[in-house]
């Protein structure tokens, strides 16, 4: 037959594929099975096959009976009778119609990935609002299937129950609460660091803290915190502990509110309770996603803002501070080691206090010499070395620099007679262990000075009393002012003003008084130091007068009646409270090859503590590493706490992955990194105003990075902090503003509200410090590509 066709014009496709005859074939040929067979044997999701139909209903109800309140908000995908019919939900006709139309839409978007019953229940929850229910469904899809981990799920729901129960219990009478506290006494001992929080008779803010604690606890990763009371079985010590503590704190706070008469407290606690409940519910799906850490913060923030309605700023701050420790509790470390660490700190604390002291001042004020001589007098430098320095410095005609050589060790520094980088040593006094940071005074090395000052708690401001020298140092362009401002902005609270080189002015009282008056005025009025935190002392670094021993100089004794020496002044300084209970943070200020294997990083522990063997995360790269050794001042130690200057030996990571500015942190609560931040800045005395697009150098801890001020959001009143003007065109000197700053690459920072010390930065431009700032928010933004052509 084909012979008769015209082959050339033939459509081959037709020829090949059209030969199937519609007739004379059965349905099976096309579909493999007949529709009736299909209906019988293949399972169709859309049909509501009730798998659990054969199971007894009671069993399910038993298990879930306590979480009715919670579960109504959570999709019931965890219950076993998944495929219950829509019809069973008893809807009106109108609702039914709406539900069906929503379902159809949802199916279009989501496909068959979720059973219909789940969808419908969510749609009903969301009041037939398609968008919100799809959102919820999608978050649910992302979450791992709960069925695979039935045990965890149960525990979670129990905690939820427990939490909501506490919420309810708060409104109950206080006597039961008291007994509950008593019954939970042992477990509260376990959480030693936070124990002070839960003691009764705290202020209103503490009440709130109690709730938030529960909240935080609940959101944090530890997977199966079984409630002690409910389950009765001990899972393991650690999991056991956290809910116990929750309960503990909640109850004690409820006790609190019960005891106190003030109504306001009551209302605060109640509102927060409700807030807490909702946040619990919101957090639930996220928790499964493993991104709970983000929610913690936002929850904290929400809650705190909530409280802000009732409390003043200080309480907010204190409560934020107080809340933070709780994030530290789910550390990867075992409870026992933590206990050890805390007791160890207490031991050491009782022994000698640690103080980080930075020495600042104008170039050639005699900082290094003063400190060098002090170290010599304290016996930290042996006579032999000192003699060597004297000889050598004499050889190059700089005999007056002999003491400075104790701290200035590089060839370059000795040759030029200028400190260039921060020198770090340690010495002990009767009551204190002091880490001494000798900062450079030259204006080109202010970046190094910032590194030093950001690691310090207190400062010695060295002033050159020589006629003319003090004036140049103190005038505009001198570093005395800039250093003092920098130190204050970087969180140094107490300052000793050492009026140095008094021998050059014959120990004149008059000179001393003019200097102290001028400096005192500047420090209190402009720099913002408290009057009580400033102390003055006349001395001479070169001849070593009035450093460790009371002076024997007759001209000085004549009028200097208090006779306090420099070392006594240092003894009088108070060390700040260290954030030991917060998650571990360390900003790397140096990376170098150590003696053994691996490599070392140096820096000050910003918060928390660190032990050899700890696993840490290096941010912003997100690489994990192990800590092999912890050294303080070349001595290996078991644990180092916030405030310590440590050298860590790292292993499990390449040296090139760690650089200055990397942040080592606790893997369970990693530091945040961003390329764009929103910050509050205080503008100093500047020559050119700051506009948007202004290029600056961003100094944070040990890092300096180029940055651009992207937006001027609002100008604030300098003292009250009110918004004066939105979107100002430029910022002039001595103003205060909220701005957005964009960095060239992501950097790890902490919010000022969370870590006071780690939330400060400085902006410099053209060799001048132009502003000090506090990180308010991390705005994560991908850098968009510019219009064209730019590199």
């Amino acid at each position, binding site marked *: 037959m084909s012979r008769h066709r015209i082959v050339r014009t033939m459509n081959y496709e037709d020829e090949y594929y059209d030969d199937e005859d519609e007739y004379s074939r059965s349905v099976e040929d096309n579909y493999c099975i007949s529709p009736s067979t299909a209906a019988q044997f293949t399972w169709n999701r859309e049909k509501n096959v009730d798998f659990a139909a054969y199971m007894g209903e009671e069993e399910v109800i038993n298990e879930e009976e306590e979480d009715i309140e919670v579960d109504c908000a959570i999709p019931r995908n965890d219950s076993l009778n998944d495929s219950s019919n829509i019809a069973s939900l008893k809807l009106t006709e109108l609702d039914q119609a709406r539900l069906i139309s929503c379902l159809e839409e949802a199916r279009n978007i989501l496909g068959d990935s979720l059973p219909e019953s789940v969808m419908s229940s969510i749609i009903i929850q969301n009041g037939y609002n398609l968008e919100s229910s799809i959102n919820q469904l999608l978050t649910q899809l992302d979450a791992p299937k709960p069925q695979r981990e039935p045990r965890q799920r149960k525990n979670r729901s129990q905690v939820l129950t427990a939490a909501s129960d506490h919420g309810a219990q708060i409104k109950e009478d206080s006597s039961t609460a008291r007994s509950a506290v008593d019954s939970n006494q042992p477990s509260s001992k376990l959480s030693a660091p936070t124990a002070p929080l839960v003691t009764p008779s705290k202020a209103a803010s503490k009440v709130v803290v109690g709730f938030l604690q529960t909240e935080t606890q609940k959101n944090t990763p530890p997977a199966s915190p079984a409630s002690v009371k409910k389950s009765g079985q001990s899972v393991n010590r650690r999991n056991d502990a956290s809910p116990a503590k929750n309960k503990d704190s909640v109850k004690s706070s409820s006790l609190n509110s019960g005891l106190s008469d003030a109504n306001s407290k009551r209302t605060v606690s109640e509102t927060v309770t409700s807030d807490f409940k909702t946040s619990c519910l919101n957090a639930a799906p996220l928790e499964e996603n493993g991104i709970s850490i983000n929610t913690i913060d936002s929850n904290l923030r929400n809650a705190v803002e909530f409280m802000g309605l009732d409390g003043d700023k200080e309480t907010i701050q204190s409560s934020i501070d107080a809340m933070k420790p709780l994030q530290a509790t789910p550390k990867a470390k075992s409870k026992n080691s933590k206990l050890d660490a805390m007791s160890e700190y207490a031991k050491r604390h009782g022994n000698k206090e640690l103080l980080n002291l930075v020495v600042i001042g104008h170039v050639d004020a005699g900082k290094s010499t003063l400190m060098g001589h002090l170290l010599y007098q304290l016996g930290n430098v042996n006579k032999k070395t000192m003699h060597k320095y004297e000889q050598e410095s004499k050889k190059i005609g700089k005999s007056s620099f002999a003491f400075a050589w104790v701290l200035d060790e590089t060839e370059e520094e000795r040759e030029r007679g200028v400190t260039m980088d921060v020198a770090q040593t340690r010495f002990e006094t009767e009551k204190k262990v002091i880490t001494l940071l000798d900062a450079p005074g030259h204006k080109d090395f202010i970046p190094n000075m910032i590194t030093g000052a950001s690691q310090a708690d207190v400062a010695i401001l060295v002033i050159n009393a020589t006629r003319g020298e003090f004036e140049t140092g103190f005038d505009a362009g001198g570093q005395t002012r800039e250093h003092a401002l920098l130190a204050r902005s970087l969180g140094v609270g107490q300052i000793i003003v050492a009026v140095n080189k008094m021998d050059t002015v014959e120990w004149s009282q008059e000179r001393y008084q003019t200097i102290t008056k001028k400096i005192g005025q500047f420090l209190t009025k402009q720099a913002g130091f408290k009057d009580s935190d400033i102390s003055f002392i006349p001395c001479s670094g070169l001849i070593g007068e009035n450093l460790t021993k009371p002076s024997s100089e007759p001209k000085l004794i004549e009028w200097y009646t208090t006779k306090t020496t420099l070392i006594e002044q240092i003894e009088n300084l108070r060390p700040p409270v260290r954030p030991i209970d917060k998650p571990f943070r360390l900003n790397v200020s140096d990376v170098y090859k150590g003696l053994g294997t691996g490599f070392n990083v140096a820096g000050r522990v910003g918060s928390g503590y660190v032990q050899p063997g700890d696993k840490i995360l290096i941010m912003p790269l997100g690489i994990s590493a192990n800590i092999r050794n912890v050294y303080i001042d070349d001595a290996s130690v078991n644990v180092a706490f916030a405030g310590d200057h440590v050298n860590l030996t790292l292993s499990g990571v390449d040296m090139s992955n760690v650089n200055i500015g990397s942040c080592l942190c606790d893997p369970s609560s990693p530091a945040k990194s961003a390329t764009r931040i929103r910050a509050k800045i205080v503008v100093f005395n500047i020559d050119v105003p700051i506009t948007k697009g202004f290029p600056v*150098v961003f100094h944070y801890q040990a890092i300096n990075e180029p940055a651009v001020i992207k937006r001027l959001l609002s100008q604030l009143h300098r003292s009250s902090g009110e918004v004066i003007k939105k*979107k100002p065109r430029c910022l002039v000197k001595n103003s205060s503003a909220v701005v957005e700053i964009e960095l060239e690459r992501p950097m790890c920072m902490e919010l000022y509200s969370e870590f006071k010390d780690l939330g400060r930065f400085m902006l410099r431009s053209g060799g001048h410090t132009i502003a000090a700032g506090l990180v308010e928010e991390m705005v994560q933004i991908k850098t968009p590509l510019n219009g064209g052509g730019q590199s």
Partner: protein
Amino acid sequence: MKLTHRNIDKSNSGSVTLVPEEPEDMWHTYNLVSVGDTIKSTTIRKVQNESATGSVSVNKVRTTLTIQVESIDFDTQACVLRVSGRNVQENQYVKMGAYHTLLLEMNRQFTLSKHEWDSVALDRIDTACDPAQHADLMAIIMQEGIAHVCLVTPSMTLVRAKVETNIPRKRKGMCDQHTKGLHRFYDQIIQAFQRHVNFDIVKCVLIASPGFVKDQFADYLFAQAVKMDDKSIIDNRSKFVLVHSSSGFKHSLKEVLADPSIAVKLADTKAAGEVKALDDFYAMLQTDPDRAYYGIRHCERACEQQAVELLMVSDELFRAQNVAQRKRYVALVDSVKENGGDVKIFSSLHVSGEQLGQLSGVAAILRFPMPEEDEDNDADDSDD
């Protein structure tokens, strides 16, 4: 750049034929060409031939094509301009409407025709074809641990190399690591420098840094040059100038160029002039904020009042894809010029131009103070 032919009629439409001669000219061309123009140039095209038997052969053919520009792409590092679009003149190899990408090459002429040549574009041709010799300069901006090796030409600042190493700090009894790290750092800079410097073009080499790094580096550089017997560096020793800068980041190149001690050497670089103008603007903003305006709206309003003394515009704005927007800026420039004001068009590749670009791209110093009005805050600020 050489202008070989120019045919622009009264209505400002027409074509010019140009021969780019140096990398810088590519930048000018990049600023001239805009979407919708037609450009004619010789190029290599793969042509597919199908023989009678149906076998296909591909060969490369050099042919002249005219395309209507659809996209422009400039590579700053190689100074190469790629222009792609559809063919508008059919020839034996290429069909009408076929896409092609022209790679504009040095010393090969091209013809650019526009429907409308505006004043900014014409000015650009004039400056590009100005035969006056200009100084190219090399700048090494550094601080401990970071260095930028830049080539500064009249209208471009090209970062040739960025060196970043970790230098261990000084610590008690272990200063040698610091010195070693420092030397490694210097070695890297020297390598980068040798690779990119061409002393035939470069008239001056700036070494800028805070503190003593520059002196140390210069000593080290010359010592190494002697050691390695690098004649080019030793012979050109007089071209090296040490300058102070506040940091080692790229934007401190701005202060280096503004440094009066070297301004003499660079009098003819456009870069220095731009820096000066921008500094003036900031100084004015400090002393008399009502005489320093930025943002297109503000500048236009000032221009209406004939108040503009100096207008600074980033050339980025003239590369706008949007014709209306481009016209708006051209109109502003024209009217300022008409009123006797001065106009400076900043190159967006320079540091100062980059900063101006961040500052909305337009800024003006006014003749007399004009009080600021507050009404128009929200509309035009949402650009970034």
